[in-house]
Each structure stands twice: as C-alpha cells, then as structure tokens.
C-alpha cells in the first residue's frame, strides 16, 4: 500500500537525520540526565514510594514535552517542504507519531535506568519489574502520541512556543493520572488481575488519539 511505503521512507528519513544530526536526541538525553541529576543532588535517595513514582513521571513528562514539541520545528526549513508535497498527510502524522513514540520509549528506558541508579531502588521491595517496564513503555508511547498531534495543531499557529504545553496539558492529565496509578501498583507488586484494567485504559487512550490524529490531520495539513 502506498501509505505503508511512504511511511517507511519517512520514518527512515527521520531516523537517518537523527543519527547524523543528533540534535534532538542529544538535547533530550541531556535534559533527562540533567533533571535526574538535579533531583539526585536535591533528594539524594528517595525512600518514599509514591514520591519516587511521581518524580519519575514528572521528569519523563517534561522530557516528552520537549521531544514532541520540537517534532514540527524542522518543518520551517525549505528542503522538508518538497518531501511533504510528495507524501500524504496521513503518512506524515503516522511517521512522526511512530518516530516520536520510538524515541520516547528509548528515552524512557534510559531515564528509568539512570533514575534507578542515581535516586536508588530502596523503596522498590515488592516491585513487579516487568509490569513497571511495560508502564514506562506504554507511558512514553502515550505521551509521544498525544503530544505529536497537539504539536501538529500548535505548529500552525503564530506563537507555538508555549502553545503545545497549554493545549497538551489538559489532554495529557487523565492519561498521566492513570499512568501514575498503574505504575504505583506495579511498584507495589500488585497482580495483573487488579492492575490490568488500568493498562486497558492507557491503551484505549492511545488508540483514541491515534485514530483522531489519523482522521483530523489531513485537514490541518491543507496549507
């Protein structure tokens, strides 16, 4: 299918650009490491489990605002415009979303490792690590998906610097709250039968946002 071909090409282009240029990735990695290090210097070790959880997700949330928020910045340059006259809007948004999701998932795992090393794993006594890793992956993917479409809307306005944050904050909040509850339960070591429903909610929100992006983005892209 044409869309799949375009999609693969677009994603490959994004990845190649990143590998060569390294601006976005290095910027975000630096941001994450910096915030984790500052938290380490302020808190040293966090022994309270809810605080451990909340701080991790706040760091990841603001890192994702940086990632997805900048995903449309490169559009301003002229060489991109030619590419996008060839590809359809659906491929563009899907490619950006998938790329951001991938990036965020890698970043999420990296942050988790840094966080665990620096801030410590003292409160993590009964943790179900596989469940928490799933939480990190789904959470990163969700942040990326939601913020990509919001960035797409904000890109078209005159002052899109803070607008992504303003538009994105209310939409991300329920996702964030459910994610915090899901990961907290994972850290407490609760079983899948109790926690599984939260995962369903997170996946549902992801799917809804993808479908909305798929349907609505062509109207945004008409310029």
């Amino acid at each position, binding site marked *: 299918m044409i869309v799949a071909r375009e999609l693969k090409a677009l994603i490959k282009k994004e990845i190649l650009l990143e590998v060569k240029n390294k601006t976005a990735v290095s910027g975000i990695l630096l941001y994450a490491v910096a915030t984790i290090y500052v938290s380490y210097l302020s808190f040293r070790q966090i022994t309270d489990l809810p605080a451990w959880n909340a701080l991790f997700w706040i760091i990841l949330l603001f890192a994702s605002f940086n990632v997805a928020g900048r995903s449309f910045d490169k559009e301003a340059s002229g060489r991109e415009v030619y590419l996008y006259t060839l590809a359809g809007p659906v491929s563009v948004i899907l490619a950006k979303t998938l790329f951001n999701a991938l990036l965020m998932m890698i970043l999420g795992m990296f942050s988790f490792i840094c966080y665990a090393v620096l801030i410590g794993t003292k409160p993590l006594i009964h943790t179900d690590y596989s469940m928490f890793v799933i939480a990190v992956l789904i959470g990163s993917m969700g942040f990326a998906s939601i913020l990509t479409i919001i960035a797409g809307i904000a890109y078209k306005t*005159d002052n899109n610097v803070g607008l992504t944050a*303003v538009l994105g904050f209310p939409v991300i909040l*329920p996702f964030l*709250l*459910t994610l915090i509850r899901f990961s907290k339960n994972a850290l407490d070591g609760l079983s899948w039968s109790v926690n599984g*429903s939260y995962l369903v909610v997170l996946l549902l929100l992801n799917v809804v946002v993808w479908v909305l992006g798929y349907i609505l983005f062509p109207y945004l892209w008409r310029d």
Partner: protein
Amino acid sequence: MGNFKKYWWKLLGCVLVAFSVVMSFTTPLAAGVAEVTPTTTKKGKQLITIKGYNAHFKSGHNRFWLTGNHHTTLIPGTIKEIINENLIKVEFDIPEQLPSNNLALAVQSREDGGAVLEAAVFVSDASILAGMTTAIQMPMDQKADHFTFPFKNILYETIRNLNFHVTMWFALIGCMLISMIRSIQHLSSIEGLKHDRSANEGVRVGLLFGFLGLITGSVWARFTWGAWWVNDTKLNGAAISVLIYLAYILLRNSISEEQKRARIVAVYNIFAFVMMLVFIMILPRLTDSLHPGNGGNPAFSNYDLDNNMRMIFYPAVLGWILIGAWMINLRSRMSHINFTIHNHE
C-alpha cells in the same frame, strides 16, 4: 402564528425547565430512616430509638423490623413510645442466633411506603449461623401513596439538585455537540465562516454551563461530602474538559488569519469533543469499576434513579439542552449580524 415553527423548540425548552423547577421545589421527600440509636447492641430485649424523616409515626400504621440476610430474617419490633412524628422508641427481641452481625432497620408504613437503613445495628454477642432464613418474606417495594422523591441518607433534600446540577453537565455536552457539528460543517463546506462563528459561540455557551456545573457541584459536595473537591475520576474529567475548551478559546486568540484559524480551530474542536466524551463518560466507568463504590456515598454516578425522579429529571435535561441551543442560536445570529455589518462597509 406563522413563526411558531421557528419558536416551538424554544418554548418547549422554557416549559420543560419551568416544569422541572416547580416539581423540584414542591415534591416532598419520601419517608426514610435518618438515624438509629444505639448502633451497637447485644442480644435479648433491646430498646432502639429510631429517628425518621418526613415520617408519620403517630399515624399508627407503621411497622418496624430488624432484618438481616437480604431482608429475609425478620425480628419484628413492638412500639413502646411515640415521641413525635419523627421519633419513636421500638423494642426488639434479638435472638441468640443471627445470619450476620449487621442488621438493617426496615419500616413499613401504609401511607409512606417502605424505608430501610442498611447496617443500622451491630449485634456484638450474637452467634452467627449463616444462611438462616425465616418463612416470612417482607414486601419491600411498597411505595408511598403520593408523588415523592427518593430518600437517600447522605443527601436528604439535596437530591433535588439532580435537576439543576446534573442538567448543567448534560447541557454542556449538548452545547459542545452542537459546536462540533458546526465545526464539521465548516470543514466540509466551501463557503465562508458562518459555521465557524456558530461553533465559537457554541463553545462559549457550553463553557458557561461547564462553570455553572463545576460551581454547583462544588457547593453540593461541600455540604454533603464535607469537601469542596474530591479526587474522583469523574470530577477530574469534568474539570479537564472545561480546561480543554478554555484552551480552544486560547487557540482562537493565537491565530490571526481568519481562514486558517477557522480550519485549525475546527480540527481542535472535534478532537476536544471526543476527548471530553472519553474523560467524562468512558474513563469513570472503566476506573470506578476497579474500586467498589464507597459504602456511604450514593451520589457518585450510579444513582438508582427512582421512577418518580426520572419523570422530572429527563424533561429537565431536555429543557436545559434546548435552552442552551437557544442561547447558541441567539449568539450565532448576533455574531452573523455583526459580521455582515462590518463587512458591508
């Protein structure tokens, strides 16, 4: 009147809202059991003081039971002293063996129907014999002989708020639905900005209802649950929906070129409506099923709506949605007239 075809739904909205207001103020509450003392007791002959609400204990047509095990084990009470219409002392002979420690108090009245206070009395020294039943099955569905609103222990008279607070949220959804339809019409039409202006007015009127809903909900919560705000999924979802639409207005203000603005804002409007539905209706259902409902709080989302209540509530919802639609209609026409005047010169 030739214009009646244009006015009928506006008049209907007024009539329905007026009807709901009158009925909400004048319908009495059904009789119920407000309080039972003492709450902990032992087996044997016990004197229990029962405080009713809107009851008529002096009429002599009341019968009392202590029940357990889904109202099948009955301990009848003998009336010892009637203090006033709402205060009565009843003696129960609590047997040695009971199906459970927590007994409910049930009243049956010929005029006022039946009322139950669940988990009213805790018997500390009875021996539990699970599955115990008696042959008598008490008829619990007896209704009052006049039109009443249901009695809920924590809400008392505030149950009337159902017709004012909850209707605000339905009006919000109604207005935003109209706004979204206008946005879709704008995206699928070639002509000018008429639908976009209507969508804008729709969001503004909807936001009015949203704020009214939040404020009335807050006041209601303060005086029934004790706090101005609770950390509940539905409340958070409602507040976030209002934030999303405030962001809509912000988005409108941040784009200067008219055609582009209309298009982008229409896309965001559709996105916002779907997210609002998810946050207000779907998420609470998914996450509240994870914690079984708080015992004493019947007011969250699963009302066992009385049929009487429904007769007033549904017309009120429809009435307020129509009033909201009328407000949007008025504002859209004003906006269109404004536009025509400014573009004519």
